[in-house]
């Protein structure tokens, strides 16, 4: 296997090496003209060109888009409307009731996302910590078990959504199991409550392995002698967890929570495939709202979608700054100790 792969790599590498050798001549000329530091620009150029055109530039003109109206796509063709899109998104008679808002769909999406974020992140953190604690014990075949929980992380959101749609559908595995056990089957994905619960459960299933890995790395960084000392003193396991493990794990856990928050705010793919946002709008989240308004619906409104995406981006920036602050505080603490 390795031999075949190596030979294949060799065959593939030959023309690449040839091309690289061909590039050397103009590169050398450029180096002679601009000096060593001039080469830095050459090395940076491809990445920064792509980066500038497809990340940085869109980011800047997104603000311009959010201040324009109409259905035209090309920015110069659009009419300036000032803050009208934001006013439309944010005007609400009563913020606790999306029906009283001018853009009720947006507020439904905001409320759904808020509820989702709270429950998903809380539950997932607990599951990740329990899993990591168990994987950190002296168990036989630890790397195998670690891989078990990691498996769904690699699956594509479409695959995840379809797997669970197949299990949760009317004649699916879950209902069959309930039926065999004597319970009444239920149509899970057309029930507002259960569809939402499924969205939370499935997204935890798909991502928990990733967070468990980070928590596990944190657990393994806790010095062993602390536990030995606690054992000497005859400390109860519960107390060891609350007094040693959790406080020392806290910095790591904060990173996990903020990372999970950032991901949960943008939840889209697997839920979209699982429920399509339904039934009704009960599992429609912010990213889906942006997608629907900007691209999928008949009444496209790019300006509105872009204003909504900037509001979401604002939340993400705040969360990321929190994450960076947490990371910096962890570092500073590490130095003091």
């Amino acid at each position: 296997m390795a031999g075949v792969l190596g030979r294949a790599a060799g065959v593939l590498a030959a023309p690449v090496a040839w091309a690289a050798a061909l590039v050397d001549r103009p590169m050398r000329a450029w180096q002679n003209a601009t000096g060593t530091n001039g080469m830095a620009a050459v090395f940076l150029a491809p990445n920064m060109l792509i980066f500038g055109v497809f990340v940085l530039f869109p980011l800047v003109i997104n603000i311009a888009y959010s201040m324009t109206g109409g259905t035209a796509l090309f920015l110069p063709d659009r009419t300036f409307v000032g803050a009208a899109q934001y006013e439309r998104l944010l005007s609400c008679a009563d913020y606790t009731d999306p029906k009283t808002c001018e853009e009720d769909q947006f507020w439904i999406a905001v409320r759904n996302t808020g509820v989702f974020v709270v429950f998903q992140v809380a539950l997932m953190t607990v599951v990740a910590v329990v899993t990591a604690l168990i994987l950190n014990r002296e168990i036989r075949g630890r790397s195998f078990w670690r891989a078990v929980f990691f498996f769904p992380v690699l699956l594509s959101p479409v695959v995840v959504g379809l797997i669970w749609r197949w299990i949760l559908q009317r004649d699916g595995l879950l209902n069959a199991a309930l039926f065999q056990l004597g319970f009444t089957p239920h149509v899970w994905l057309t029930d507002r409550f259960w569809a939402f619960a499924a969205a939370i459960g499935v997204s935890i299933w798909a991502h928990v392995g990733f967070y468990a890995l980070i928590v596990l790395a944190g657990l393994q960084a806790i010095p062993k002698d602390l536990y030995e000392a606690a054992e000497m003193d005859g400390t109860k396991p519960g107390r060891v967890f609350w007094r040693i493990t959790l406080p020392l794990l806290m910095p790591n856990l904060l990173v996990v929570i903020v990372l999970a928050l950032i991901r949960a705010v943008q939840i889209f793919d697997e839920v979209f495939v699982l429920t399509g946002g339904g039934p009704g709008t009960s599992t429609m989240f912010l990213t889906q709202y942006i997608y629907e308004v900007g691209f999928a619906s008949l009444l496209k409104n790019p300006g509105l979608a872009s204003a909504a995406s900037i509001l979401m981006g604002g939340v993400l920036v705040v969360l990321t700054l929190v994450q960076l602050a947490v990371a910096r505080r962890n570092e500073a603490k590490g130095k003091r100790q």
Partner: protein
Amino acid sequence: MTGTVGQFLLRRRGGRGWHWTDVFTWVWLVGGLVLMFGPALWLVGSSFKSPAQLAEFPPTLLPYVSRTAVVPGHDKPLPLFVVKMENGETRELAEIRRIGIVAQMVDPAKPGEIVRVNIQNRTPAREIGLATGNYTEPFVHFDFLRYLQNSVFVTVVATLITLVTNSMAAFALSKYQFRGRSTVMLLILATLMVPLSVILVPLYSIISTVGLFNSLWGVILPTVATPTGVFMLRQYMLTIPDELLDAARMDKASEWQIYWRIILPLTAPALAVLAIFSVVWRWNDFLWPLIVLSRKEVYTLQVGLNTYAGELNVQWHYILAMTVVTMIPVVLVFVFLQRFITTGIAGSGLK
């Protein structure tokens, strides 16, 4: 025998007894095993069932196919049924045709004699078998072969461009002192905060303006300048001693040769990890391809699957099989390269 096996399995280190935490550990692990692999295995099992079998409730665990028999005097193989006769005996008969609730059946051993049976008294005879048509038909009759090609193209090309451009940028950012270096770093860092979902509208308009709408290049280009890739490679290159570069410069190596002949081979482990990540990312991408690709010929597997699964009358037998196909590369990565990914995540927290 079972006693010793049990003793072996249940033995504890240091000979201590079972604590409730040990029980909880194994319940959690075995439960996790079932919950994490079960759904995917159920998918694979279901993907080999025929449409009729998929409609059964409760579903069978394993895929079955109806047995058939070739009976002289009939061109096509006839489906076999287990029939309960009026005198109480059961026989295996082949069905010729069905009229209302009466089936005309024939014993394959005695093709001359036609038996009339009430359809309530017969059940299909079947054996474990795979409905492989679920896999071949979407490739032949639908566009899934094209989707597969598109997905492979996007994944391979995007990964190659990612490796080349990211490693070049990382080389510049780790081994050169130049004005504006920290500004560039800050710019890249800042975009870590901005996921694609925040710039969908302007990115879409740029892609359309440059004529990449409905083009696979429109899917590839916005994803290749990954900040995570640049950071990961830069961290790795910082550990390569500068003396190595200086020695090469003494020998009149050009900067490009230094990058190509010295830095890249030494960065191979980090490049391998980035390549694995990139393959998984690009293979799994969904939202952006969904927006950029609106013509069926350019769909990737993920978008194609979603489209077929979103139809009013979902043909689950094809969808399930194609979901399995979509899963295969990632499962291969999991089986052979999982270790690289898990250590990569534990080390840097990227995904």
